């Protein structure tokens, strides 16, 4: 009886500790999640970065990352729309019969990469995004829809905090008060006073978190967008390649945080060498047709990048 009492007391003392959440500082409790696009944008506001990192900020503004939900020429938003109408609404087990049924988990097919911070939001934000996507084709609300979709994107915090660590059990979870770069120390910002080093910031795996290994098989319904990182790992590296994504897309051509691809003339020029040689001769074809004059054109195309071109 005494033994039993002792066990019960010890269990009661330990109970509060069992109930404490695991130290995943990245996850937001449901009560803290954003409930509107504006709230999500505010949670991930990076306007203070511009004060000290103006040049980099302006480069980012010119990048495709800064338009990750709206897209260049609204292409991304349009594709989110067709994902809903030609995908979700046609699948019998998706739970989506109309756009109003779309929840966070449905949008994650796209936002895993296009807006990772949506995990920090509620289904209400998913609905607001859906309304804005379809609103692009409604004259009365088009302008408002464009503005809403442009507020949310892959910004400084996504790379320099959210995605800064891949191996979290070995290297820790991203801290909410820190920005991750190449150095450790104090950071002159009220909201992010800590500067920490990311081990992967200059490694291709950093970009590979979003730039594609193939189907996202962890989802109930796998989506697949780019396969560039897969091509990098399984084609470029075996061919003897050794440069990183950042090497070409940031440093080599001095593009910084624009990180352009084919839309940039320098990158397009450097990506593929294209040589054409041609000559003529008389070809002895066959008895019936005899000897005919023939031009022979030999085209040599060399892909000088770290992944297949084009990707898709």
């Amino acid at each position: 009886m005494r033994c039993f009492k002792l066990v019960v007391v010890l269990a009661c003392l330990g109970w509060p500790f069992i109930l404490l959440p695991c130290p995943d500082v990245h996850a937001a409790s449901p009560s803290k999640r954003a409930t509107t696009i504006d709230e999500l944008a505010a949670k991930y506001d990076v306007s203070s970065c511009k004060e000290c990192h103006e040049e980099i900020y302006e480069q980012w503004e010119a990048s495709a990352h800064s338009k990750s939900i709206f897209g260049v020429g609204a292409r991304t938003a349009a594709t989110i729309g067709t994902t809903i109408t030609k995908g979700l609404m046609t699948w019998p087990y998706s739970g989506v019969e109309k756009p109003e049924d779309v929840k966070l988990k449905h949008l994650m097919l796209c936002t895993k990469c296009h807006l990772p911070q949506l995990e920090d939001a509620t289904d209400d934000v998913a609905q607001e995004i859906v309304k804005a996507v379809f609103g692009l084709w409604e004259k009365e609300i088009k302008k408002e829809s464009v503005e809403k979709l442009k507020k949310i994107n892959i910004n400084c915090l996504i790379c320099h905090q959210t995605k800064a660590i891949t191996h979290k059990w070995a290297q820790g979870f991203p801290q909410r008060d820190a920005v991750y770069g190449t150095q450790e120390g104090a950071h002159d910002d009220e909201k992010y006073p800590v500067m920490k080093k990311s081990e992967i910031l200059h490694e291709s795996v950093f970009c590979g978190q979003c730039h594609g290994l193939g189907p996202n098989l962890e989802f109930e319904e796998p989506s697949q967008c780019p396969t560039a990182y897969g091509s990098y790992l399984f084609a470029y590296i075996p061919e003897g390649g050794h440069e990183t994504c950042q090497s070409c897309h940031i440093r080599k051509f001095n593009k910084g945080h624009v990180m352009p691809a084919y839309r940039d003339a320098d990158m397009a020029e450097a990506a593929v060498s294209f040589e054409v040689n041609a000559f003529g001769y008389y070809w002895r074809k066959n008895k019936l047709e005899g000897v005919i004059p023939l031009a022979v054109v030999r085209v040599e195309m060399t892909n000088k990048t770290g992944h297949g071109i084009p990707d898709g």
Partner: protein
Amino acid sequence: MPAPGRFACGEQMGRGPYEKAGLIRDTALPPHRTVVETFEIPFPYEKTEQGKEIYGKPLFKAMDIVVELWYVPFGETEGPAARWNQLERKETKRVTID
């Protein structure tokens, strides 16, 4: 370009990130490799006989051949979707024959 399967099943190519899964075929230029394509283009000619042999007499002695390399994701070279076209290299070669 990569030709992904439709839900990674069967022979049909998928469309859009919501359908695409895996790869059926990949015609993209592979990284760090050279792809060579050769085209044989007959000169326009008329058939003549030279002794017992049939001989194609070229109608003209020079031909300008334009070689274009492009990637047109939405199949449009003009129009709104053309903004996403890539690469677009063009070279003209003059081929002559005696």
